[in-house]
């Protein structure tokens, strides 16, 4: 992720290990999300069950990242970019763990939907899935590459995702009025959309942490125009 060459080799090694853990938790979260979505669209509970079971590994990795970060802070007293790297890694780890939790929620709802006959409305989720997955992918890529501009793009996608989620909710609520027999399915779809929207929020948080790591700028709670002034 980062090329480092500290005079003190164990320091470099521990930072590299932290990077590897971050890479791993990101890969797992991405894979689990893919499994949950596949389980939903292919109506295959095995995928959903895998996504649920594998979340434990994400939880353990989050704790491992915290342990590694604390170890580096207590043993090597990192400063400047190293300090930002450790802090960002610990925050990103926590956000990805939340992505894992949302993925578990999606997988559970998918199993419930799979209990019913297939519905065409599943594809109402297409855009939300596409954008939230893209945000997660690109936030993780920005993290690996230390790519500030890509991180900013991810943050800017968040509003669009919120809008897509809102529109989907409105459409499905209208359909509930037309066909009350499908209300349980529609509610689960609304819930899944909400989870995907939350995944987008976490991806945006990861993006903010990447910007902090790269440029030491704190862009949380700033509007787009304020961010363009700051960064």
């Amino acid at each position: 992720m980062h090329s480092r060459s500290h005079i003190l080799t164990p320091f470099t090694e521990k930072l590299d290990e932290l990077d590897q853990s971050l890479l791993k938790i990101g890969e797992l979260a991405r894979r689990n999300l893919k499994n949950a979505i596949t389980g939903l669209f292919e109506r295959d509970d095995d995928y959903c069950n895998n996504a649920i079971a594998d979340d434990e590994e994400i939880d353990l990795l989050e704790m491992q990242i915290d342990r590694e970060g604390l170890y580096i802070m207590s043993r090597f007293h990192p400063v400047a970019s190293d300090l930002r790297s450790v802090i960002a890694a610990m925050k990103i780890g926590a956000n990805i763990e939340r992505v894992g939790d949302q993925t578990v929620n999606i997988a559970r709802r998918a199993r419930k939907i799979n209990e019913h006959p297939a519905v065409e409305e599943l594809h109402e989720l297409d855009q939300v899935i596409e954008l939230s997955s893209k945000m997660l992918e690109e936030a993780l890529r920005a993290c690996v590459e230390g790519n500030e501009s890509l991180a900013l793009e991810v943050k800017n996608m968040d509003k669009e995702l919120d809008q897509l989620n809102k529109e989907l909710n409105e459409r499905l609520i209208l359909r509930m009025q037309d066909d009350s027999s499908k209300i349980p399915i529609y509610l689960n779809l609304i819930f899944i959309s909400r989870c995907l929207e939350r995944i987008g929020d976490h991806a945006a948080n990861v993006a903010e942490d990447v910007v902090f790591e790269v440029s030491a700028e704190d862009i949380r709670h700033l509007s787009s125009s304020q961010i363009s002034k700051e960064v």
Partner: protein
Amino acid sequence: MTSPLASLPFSEPFADDVVCDQRFIEVSNFNFFYGKKQVLFDINLTIPARQVTAFIGPSGCGKSTLLRNLNRMNELLPGVSHSGTIAIHGISIFDPSIEVIALRRRIGMVFQKSNPFPKSIFENVVFPLRIMGKQSRSFLEETVERSLRAVALWDEVKDRLKESALGLSGGQMQRLCIARAIANQPEVLLMDEPCSALDPIATAKIEELIVELKKEFTIIIVTHSMQQASRISDLTAFFYLGKLIEFDQTQRIFTAPIQKKTEDYITGRFG
């Protein structure tokens, strides 16, 4: 003839004079040479009053040389020369009319290795006052108590002021040297790695003392400990190969330095 420094408002409170406070010591286009070898290159630095400024950098970067120039200690070495100016309160310390002894009275110094004199604790503290001809017993006693209290040593030694200073621990000796340095109320305290020979507890006491002393004194400290600089200084100057690379708020230097050389040094990447 009276030294111009004697008439300076050194002992006057200048809290209201923001400009004076912020531009207390001004180093301008300063170059310094040991014989033909140039060791400081075009240093420009403005040090504010009553803050702790840390000089950091690898060995041989010129930080101690600059520190020793601030009270003209380097002039004790043969073959040295300089160009540019160092001004305190806007007055050049190299002005021909400046008395070096008077200057050093205003700018105290604490060295890496504590150097108490083979005298009693009391006599160590009052030594600079005796040189100035102060003889009043009550004044000397008041000064000893005030100075030792300021360095948090009073309670530890008040019952053995007549005993030799050489019987104190390393940390106590260093605090005694600081008490001696502040006995005649200087404006500036220069510290050249004052904790490098001390254990962590003695170091913590000196650091606490430095933070306390900055309420009254302008402190400039040379340190090789990045953690020490980040713990106690308000401003940090990073030197490399005789040049000032970066000078900024300590918080900024240790979280987001601007210069790559600074980043590489403080993160331990320098090869």
